[in-house]
């Protein structure tokens, strides 16, 4: 199926266990995210947001349903149509709530490694990593180890790493949970900027309602089902 969507899912369902112990973590989840669109996925804990994100992120395949990335069918149920790890490396950037950076690499190296893993030559990878850190305003902390960076700086480096290979999809799981409201909003603005400027489809799982005005589309998930599509709140 070829279309103009960065991400498209059809009827994603995830079932854990069987018989009496069967738990449906996600049921018939379908969304579409265009290139350059930033989408928020809201919902209480245990509603299936992370299950949805890991399915779209090709980490934890669904029991049934389809995942298209850039118009390409990647997952059909649990069946992969490509090498998922390689596909992930080339097309998906991740930003997570915590443990985002490899602790034994500097900020610069954390970005550089993503590029080198994708076949970039070390020198070119270093140059591009530096450009990204500069773009995100943390170039001066590039040689610091993650433990020496503040929460906001760590998230910026993580975003830089997520952008390194010019992915068509960025998935963020509670990226502002460890940040204060000021820095949280800054990070959300960054995602919006990246989506709009670089044309990536961005899905952000969040509890943070204070920055919902930055999103193009808002989905809410409850009991494993994407129930509603909300309109963004405008300031």
């Amino acid at each position, binding site marked *: 199926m070829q279309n103009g969507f960065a991400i498209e899912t059809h009827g994603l369902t995830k079932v854990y266990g069987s018989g009496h112990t069967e738990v449906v973590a996600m049921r018939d989840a379908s969304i579409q995210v265009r290139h350059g669109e930033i989408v928020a996925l809201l919902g209480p804990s245990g509603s299936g947001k992370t299950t949805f994100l890991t399915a779209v992120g090709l*980490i934890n395949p669904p029991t049934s349903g389809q995942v298209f990335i850039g118009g390409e069918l990647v997952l059909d149920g649990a069946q992969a149509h490509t090498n998922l790890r390689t596909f992930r490396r080339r097309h998906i950037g991740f930003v997570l709530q915590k443990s985002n950076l490899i602790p*034994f690499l500097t900020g610069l*190296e954390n970005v550089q490694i*993503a590029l080198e893993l994708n076949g970039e030559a070390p020198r070119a990878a270093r140059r591009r990593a530096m450009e990204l850190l500069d773009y995100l305003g943390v170039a001066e902390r590039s040689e610091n180890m993650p433990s020496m960076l503040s929460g906001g700086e760590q998230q910026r480096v993580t975003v830089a790493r997520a952008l390194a290979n010019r992915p068509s999809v960025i998935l963020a799981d509670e990226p502002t949970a460890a940040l204060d409201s000021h820095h949280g909003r800054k990070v959300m603005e960054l995602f919006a900027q990246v989506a709009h400027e670089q044309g990536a489809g961005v899905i952000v799982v969040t509890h943070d309602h204070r920055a919902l005005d930055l999103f193009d589309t808002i989905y809410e998930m409850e009991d494993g089902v994407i129930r509603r599509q909300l309109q963004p709140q405008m300031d």
Partner: protein
Amino acid sequence: MNLATKDIRHNLGRFALTTLGVGMLLLIVMGMGGIYRGFVEEATLLVNRIGADLWIVQRDTRGPIAEVSRVPRNLVHRALAAPGVQSAREFVYHTIQREHDGKPLRMAVLGLSWPTDKGEWVPLIAGRSLAQNHFEMIADESLGLHLGERIKLGKETYTVGGVTISMVSSNGDGIGFFTVADAQAIQFDTPGEAVRLERASRQARGERTDLGAQQPLALIEQTIASPPLSAVIVTLSPGADVQRVASIISGWGDVSVYTQEGQRELLLKGLIAKMRQQIGLFRILLTVIAGIIMALILYTLTLEKVLSIALLKLIGAPNTVIGGLILQQALLLGILGYGIAYLLGRRVYPMFPRRVLLTEADLLQLAIVVVVISVASSVLGIWKAMQVSPNDVLS
């Protein structure tokens, strides 16, 4: 980017301590091998240095180094009469433990066949070889005797005329080189009272026989009969067939004959065979322990990196990169540990009381073993890393 070295850089202190620990363990493994080689070297040292073609010893014994052997002095002349024999020398060898300067002194006493053999073949680090038939000795430095020092052994006092190095018995005792006459005097030093009692006893027995009545002097002869040798060592004429000469001498009913190689085998198979097994098994055990410890260390290091590994998988790192990270650390740990063991060993081993001999072949063999156990011990860590899911970073 080399992730292995980056991780090590981040935990440098701990990695250094771990490597030092592995190095100390390998130091013991290396040392055990060196001790075994030292045993072999010391056990066969005399046989190799003396370089005799044949050793004639007491019948059915494995003497004179592996066990006590006694042969009569006239055996030298009989050996000289055998076809193919160029020269035959007396050989006396025994171990004594005396006291010198208030300390116990263990010494292997070796008698040289003066004046044929003055000990010119003994490697000297000070002084000279024997210059007279009596009261001189060449001492191995491990005996702690200095050039010109005088030492009383039995009824006589001997002066150290030369000092040699690395001339020790198969038990590791330093060798003292004397003339055969002096070596026998030391070996058969009997108190005067014991001689008088033995003489009276023999005389009393003789008087009860016809021989004693007819030839009383013969009884006295018996009491002062010349002491036996330990062995006779033979050099063959050029072109002589060793096996043929050995076969001829073996025909004599009172002696056994060994070639130089035969003597070496006797010592290696008899004297140090059990030691060889003991040390060999100990080395295997230590190597296995080193492997297990390395595996546990690498497993622990992997456990500590689970989140990083999950993150690497999340951003698409192939298994070869993650496995390579652990394997490279294992190899670095092994190779650096080996280097530490070698460098420390060069300084520490010379302080050991017995010789620790590092041969190139043994060092190479251990290096290969270290690489193998490094690779093997990384398997557990790599297995653990392969079990890590990128999902783990989300939990």
